[in-house]
C-alpha cells in the first residue's frame, strides 16, 4: 500500500527530472546551428517573454474559474483528499508548506518552529518542530486544512497521526520545478487561488527561462555542503540544488552520482574526485550560522584545492542557505536569479 505510494512518488519525481532534462536538451539543439549564440539567446528570451505574457493572460482567465467545493484533489504523495469548503484556518508543517500557502494569498494560522518566511507567517501560532508537530496545539487551532511536506512527513510514524485527526491533510513538495508547478496547481485548487497559482507558475517559468538564457553554454558547476569533519557532499540530480543547476543549463559535475552519506540528494565527494572533475564554479552552502567559518573560505585553505580552476579564477562562491538548501519552494525565483548571476559572472 505505502510502497505503491512511494513508487508513485518516485515515478513522479523521475518524470519531473526527465522533463527537465528534456527541456535542457531541446534548449541545446538550436544552439548547435550556425546562428551566433548571443543572438540566439536573445531570440529565445524574446520568445519566452511572449510566452510569459500569454501565460499571464491565461492566468487572468483562470482567476475567473473558482474552485467548486467540495473538491477532490490528488496530493504530492498520490493521496486522494476531499476538501469540503474553502479552508479558512490552515496549519502548515514545514517552511516550504508555509511559503506555498502564504504566497498564494491565504492566511497561515499555524506554522512549524523554524518557519521564518515570509515575515507575516512568523506571527502565526508555533505548532512545534517540523519533525515533531504538536498534536495538542494543532487541535486547539481547530484547522480545516493541514499542509504537510512530502519530504518530511511521508514516513508512517508522522503521517498516520496527522491523518487520524480527521482534518484533511495535503502533502506538498518542491523537489524540483516540475513538482513546484504541480504543487502550485494543487494548492490553487485547494485554496480557491487558481489565478494566483497560475501567475506564480508563469513567474517561475519566466525566471527559469531568463536564468538559463543568461548562463553561458557549457558552464560546469558543483554545489557543496560539508559536515563537521569537513567531509564534502555534492548536490546530485535528486536534490533541490541539483534540480536548479539543471534548470539553468549548467553542467552539474556530480549530477549523475548516487546518494551516499546521510543527506538525501547528496553524494559524498573525495577531494581527489573534486580535483578530477575540476568544475568551472564551486558553489558552497554552510548550514551553521555565522560566526561559524563559511565553507567557501574553508575550501580555500585546503592546499590541494589551490590547483582547481574555480579556485584560480575566484569562482568559489558562498550561496544562500535558505534558497539552496533549507527552503525549497516559492523563493525559487530568487534562487534562479542568484544562480544565473553567479554563473554568468566573469
Amino acid at each position, binding site marked *: *500500500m*505505502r*510502497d505503491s505510494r*512511494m513508487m508513485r512518488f518516485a515515478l513522479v519525481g523521475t518524470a519531473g527530472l526527465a522533463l527537465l532534462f528534456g527541456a535542457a536538451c531541446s534548449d541545446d539543439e538550436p544552439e548547435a546551428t550556425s546562428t551566433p549564440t548571443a543572438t540566439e539567446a536573445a531570440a529565445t528570451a524574446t520568445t519566452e517573454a511572449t510566452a510569459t505574457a500569454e501565460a499571464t493572460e491565461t492566468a487572468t482567465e483562470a482567476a475567473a474559474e473558482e474552485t467548486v467545493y467540495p473538491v477532490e484533489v490528488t496530493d504530492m504523495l498520490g493521496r486522494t483528499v476531499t476538501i469540503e469548503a474553502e479552508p479558512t484556518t490552515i496549519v502548515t508543517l514545514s517552511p516550504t508548506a508555509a511559503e506555498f500557502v502564504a504566497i498564494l494569498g491565504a492566511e497561515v494560522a499555524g506554522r512549524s*518552529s523554524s518557519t521564518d518566511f515570509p515575515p507575516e507567517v512568523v506571527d502565526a501560532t*508555533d*505548532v*512545534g*518542530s517540523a*519533525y*515533531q508537530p*504538536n*498534536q*495538542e*496545539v494543532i*487541535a*486547539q487551532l*481547530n484547522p480545516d486544512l493541514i499542509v504537510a511536506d512530502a519530504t*518530511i512527513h511521508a*514516513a*508512517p*510514524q*508522522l503521517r498516520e*497521526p496527522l491523518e487520524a485527526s480527521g482534518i484533511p491533510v495535503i502533502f506538498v513538495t518542491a523537489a524540483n520545478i516540475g513538482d513546484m508547478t504541480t504543487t502550485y496547481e494543487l494548492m490553487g485548487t485547494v485554496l480557491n487561488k487558481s489565478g494566483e497559482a497560475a501567475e506564480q507558475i508563469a513567474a517561475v517559468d519566466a525566471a527559469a527561462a531568463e536564468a538559463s538564457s543568461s548562463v553561458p553554454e557549457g558552464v560546469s558547476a558543483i554545489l557543496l555542503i560539508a559536515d563537521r569533519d569537513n567531509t564534502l557532499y555534492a548536490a546530485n540530480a535528486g536534490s533541490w540544488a541539483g534540480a536548479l543547476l539543471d534548470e539553468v543549463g549548467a553542467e552539474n559535475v556530480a549530477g549523475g552520482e548516487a*546518494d551516499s*552519506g*546521510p*543527506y*538525501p540528494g547528496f553524494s559524498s565527494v573525495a577531494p581527489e574526485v573534486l580535483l578530477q572533475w575540476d568544475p568551472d564554479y564551486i558553489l558552497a552552502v554552510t548550514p551553521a550560522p555565522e560566526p561559524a567559518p563559511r565553507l567557501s573560505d574553508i575550501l580555500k585553505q585546503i592546499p590541494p584545492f589551490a590547483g582547481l580552476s574555480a579556485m584560480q579564477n575566484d569562482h568559489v562562491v558562498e550561496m544562500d542557505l535558505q534558497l539552496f538548501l533549507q527552503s525549497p519552494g516559492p523563493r525559487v525565483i530568487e534562487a534562479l536569479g542568484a544562480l544565473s548571476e553567479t554563473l554568468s559572472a566573469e
Partner: protein
Amino acid sequence: MWTLALLGALVVVGMLSIIMGAIMLGLPDAIRGLIHDNGEFERLVVWDLRLPRFLDAVLVGAALGVSGALLQAVTRNPLADPTILGVSAAAGLALAVGLVLFPGIDREWLAVITILGGLVGAGVLLSMAWQGAISSIRLTLAGIAISAFFGAAIVGLLASSTTFLELSLGFLAGGLYGSDWRDAQIVAPIVIPAVAIAIALTPRLNALALGDELAAGLGVLTDRTRLIALILVGALTGAAVSVAGLVSFVGLVSPHVSRSLVGEDQRYLLPTSALTGALLVATADLVARLVIRPSELPMGILTAAVGAPFLLYLVRFRR
C-alpha cells in the same frame, strides 16, 4: 511506607501530565476531558494524547526498572543495566532494521521484532558468558562488548539509511513523541506478566545474592534462575525500546534509588524499582514536553539529566 509514597508521587505526576502540556488545562477541564466522551478539545487532548502517553511512560519505566533490578541481581554487579549490557542495543538494532527494511510495517510487528531483538541480545549475553556455569564477571564483560558492537551497528545503519535520518534523533536519545493507546495495548500484555513473573522470582534472587554455592545449598537452581531472569530482561527491554527507543539510565538508577529506600530484599526491591522507573520516565517525559513547548526535548536526555545527579548523590553521601 516508601512504596506508598512512590505510588502517590506517580499519581501526582500522572495528574500533572494530564493537566500540563503545550496547552495548559485547568483541573476541571482536565477532569471533564477524562470523564466525558463529548468529542471536545479537552477530550482529545486528555484522553487521546496525554493519558495514553503517561501510561506508556509508566510501562516503559517499570519495564526498564525491573530489567535493571533483575540484571543487577543475577550478575551481582551494581553497574548492570540493559543499556550497559547490550540488551537495549540489541533490541534497538532489531527496531532499526525493522524500520529501514520494512518502512510501512505495522507497529505490532515492529514490537515483535524488537522484543525478539531483546531476547536475542539476552541470549547472546548468556551464551557468551556460559562456560559450564554462568560467571557474573564474564556476563558483565560480554555485555559491555555486545553493547558496543550492537551500538556501532545501529549508528552504522542510521548513517547509511537516508530515509531514517529524521527519526534517528528521537530514536537514539529515546522519547515518547506520538505514542498512544495502541502502544500501550501492544506492550502491556508483555510488561505486566513479565513484571509479575519477576516478582515471583524474587525469593530465588535473594538466595542468589548469597553466592552460587550457598544458593545451590538452599535448593535454588542458580543457572535456571539466571536463564529465566535474562529472558524476562530481554522481553521487558524489547518492549520498552519498541515504544520509547533507547532510553538510558533508568535501568541503572532505579534499583539504586529503590535500594536506598527499601534495602536489599528483592521482594521489596524489585516492585519498588518498577515504581521508581515509572516515576522517573513519567517525570522526564513531562519535563521533555514542557521545556521548549510546543517542541519537545528527547526524553532520554532528561532521564540521564535527572538520574545521573541522583546517582552521584547516592554514591557520595549515602552508606
